């Protein structure tokens, strides 16, 4: 609450310096429902940081098309029923533009409600394909990379590799199972073979039995589909067992900026899919990274980048709509090309997924700091997922 008040204060300060016309316009009110205390609290923190950055920036520039931007945030605890309650509160309290949820289950739970509540949802972290695929719903948009796009990034990279015997360690949830399956397919199509497919449960403490099996299977490379705590546990323990040094380690969501920072040297030399990197060499990105680093002293992480991307898209849509009414924003969002930190990107009208390039990289030292660095870029058109969505 007091954060929201402070934000309003900052925003007001900014407002005073701009024209009287802007003061009269309705504010753009954003509801950020994210995980502040549960499993994904650290990701929620990244979303919040990007939120503050984007909104401060917009207000400092006189608002979005003259509309002051305000936000309010609630903790969803990564639980779908809590997410529903908090989003409903945000909408009813007058913050109908919703963003920030982490777990796919949360996004999927509130997606069907957007129509009923007259609100809209922009996903910046939810990875499940269904959100803009089989279970797509009106008024639901996604700017972050979905799983299918990550899967499409694997094959170009595999083609360059010599390793033929692969193992996969994937978290035993829908995301992990799906990603592992697509990876196995890609391995077979590029002439390799799978020697082990392991599915540890979520929140595994001890990965030793899995590490042991990978070693035993004689894998030359291991594909890791783990996130957050699981990713750190696995990386740390496989380093201790000497696995990381012995074979190629690569993965999806494994080499996020957050994980790499936590792991330090254990992450060095690990390959991975990168959805956004502060090292991207575009003028827009360089400007963003500079402004960000000036403010927070560290470069933005992948999640912070994608969350910021969401605000870029939203703000441009508001400008186009010349309105902060959700109905107008919903009409303005799809089918347009947006100027973003990742270049000019199209928000596809059919499924309301932002089509963006994807990257493959390796963890290296940049200016003395370990960071995932982009090595292969796969164009947006090459990773664009098939359109499954049928709801307009």
């Amino acid at each position: 609450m007091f954060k929201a008040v402070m934000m309003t204060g900052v925003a007001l300060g900014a407002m005073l310096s701009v024209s009287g016309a802007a003061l009269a316009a309705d504010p753009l009110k954003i509801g950020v429902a994210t995980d502040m205390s549960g499993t994904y609290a650290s990701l929620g923190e990244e979303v919040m940081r990007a939120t503050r950055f984007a909104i401060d920036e917009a207000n400092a520039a006189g608002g979005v098309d003259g509309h002051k931007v305000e936000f309010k945030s609630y903790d969803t605890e990564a639980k779908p029923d809590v997410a529903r309650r908090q989003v409903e509160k945000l909408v009813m309290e007058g913050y109908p533009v919703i963003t920030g949820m982490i777990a796919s289950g949360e996004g999927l739970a509130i997606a069907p409600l957007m129509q009923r509540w007259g609100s809209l949802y922009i996903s910046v972290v939810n990875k499940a394909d269904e959100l803009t695929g089989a279970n797509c719903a009106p008024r639901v948009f996604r700017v972050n990379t979905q799983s299918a796009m990550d899967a499409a990034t694997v094959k170009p990279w595999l083609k360059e590799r010599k390793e033929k015997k692969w193992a996969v360690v994937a978290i035993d949830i829908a995301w992990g199972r799906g990603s592992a399956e697509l990876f196995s397919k890609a391995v077979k199509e590029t002439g390799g073979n799978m020697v082990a497919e392991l599915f540890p449960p979520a929140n595994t403490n001890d990965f030793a039995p899995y590490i042991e099996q990978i070693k035993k299977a004689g894998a030359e490379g291991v594909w890791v589909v783990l996130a957050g705590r699981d990713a750190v546990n696995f990386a740390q323990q496989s380093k201790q067992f000497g696995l990381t040094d012995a074979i190629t380690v690569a993965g999806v969501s494994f080499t996020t900026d957050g994980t790499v920072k936590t792991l330090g040297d254990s992450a060095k030399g690990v390959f991975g899919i990168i959805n956004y990197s502060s090292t991207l060499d575009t003028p827009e990105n360089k400007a963003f990274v500079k402004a960000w680093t000036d403010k927070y002293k560290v470069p933005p992480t992948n999640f912070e980048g994608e969350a910021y991307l969401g605000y870029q898209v939203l703000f441009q849509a508001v400008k186009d709509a010349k309105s902060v009414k959700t109905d107008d924003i919903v009409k303005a969002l799809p089918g347009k090309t947006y100027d973003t930190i990742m270049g000019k990107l199209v928000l596809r009208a059919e499924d309301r997924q932002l089509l963006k390039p994807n990257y493959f990289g390796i963890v290296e030292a940049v200016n003395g700091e370990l960071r995932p660095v982009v090595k292969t870029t796969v164009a947006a058109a090459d990773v664009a997922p098939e359109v499954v969505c049928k709801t307009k």
Partner: protein
Amino acid sequence: MTALSQGDVPAASSPLLKTRGLLAMALAALLLGVAAPRLVSSQLMLSLATQAIFDALLATSVGFLVLQNGRVSFGQAAFFGLGGYAFGVLVARGLMAAELAVLTALALPTLVAFLLGLVFARIAGVAHAMLTLAVGQAFYEIAFRWRELAKGDDGMAFNLPPRIFGFDSSLLQDPSVMVVVAWTILVLALLGLALFANSRMGQIAAAVRDNAERARFIGHDTTIPPAIVYAISALLAAIAGLLQATYNGYIAPQMFHWSLSGSALIMAVVGGAQFILGPAIGAVCFFILKDFAGRFAEYWPAIVGSVLVIVTLVMPQGIVGLLKAGWFRMRRQA
């Protein structure tokens, strides 16, 4: 169960008079519920009230087990989830008519609880709590990992069939309607529990709770009455789960998780588990507290935690226990 034994036993006035008083109170509560949507214009308030009532039902189900069987359950979410999942899965797949799905969603958890109750009633204390925790988590694991059932950890959204029991089903997702439905069910459930507690079966169950061995030696069977209490308690949890699934149009494995069972237990004890009305009141207070603490973003756990520690130390008998003690003191002084 030392804290429980300190609870004083309600003086048994004329049963008929008592029943009549209960009925009058229930009727008044029902009318209040029907009037609520007309008195409260905020949809948000109504929706929050609706969700608080779901919590109240679940807490009542946990509290009833403590009250009637003297057993602490850490796995009541198993029946909450089972009710929601049975309905969601059956409706989403169109396996049966929605009305039949409702009945199945209520009957299945009740039956499972009855069968478990036959075995669990023998076991008391911490062992019982752990046993129910394990059963609840086993259900959670199944829902979490069985992707073909309801998309595993992601949970599953489903559409209600257009009509249920002849009514437009979209009304069930409208807070101003659902709040009345849920409130009515809660009031009737509390009334039913009060009547059960005064019935022969309820009193025999209370005797078994107090002293199972002696209950046998005064000639009563000690397996069936507690099992019936388990079944009733599970039915309540299943109703809550069914209502939540219907209202949200969504089911997720978190519905089975022990943290939900734990919150329900907290609500029940904070309200006063040795009173039929206690858990429901505790649930509402807890809901309001959490909603309030939620304004302080990530600091809410500390606020809730501190209140929990203080409240439990100050009133181990719960809110209703404290109110009752206060009431008696006032009367004595008057």
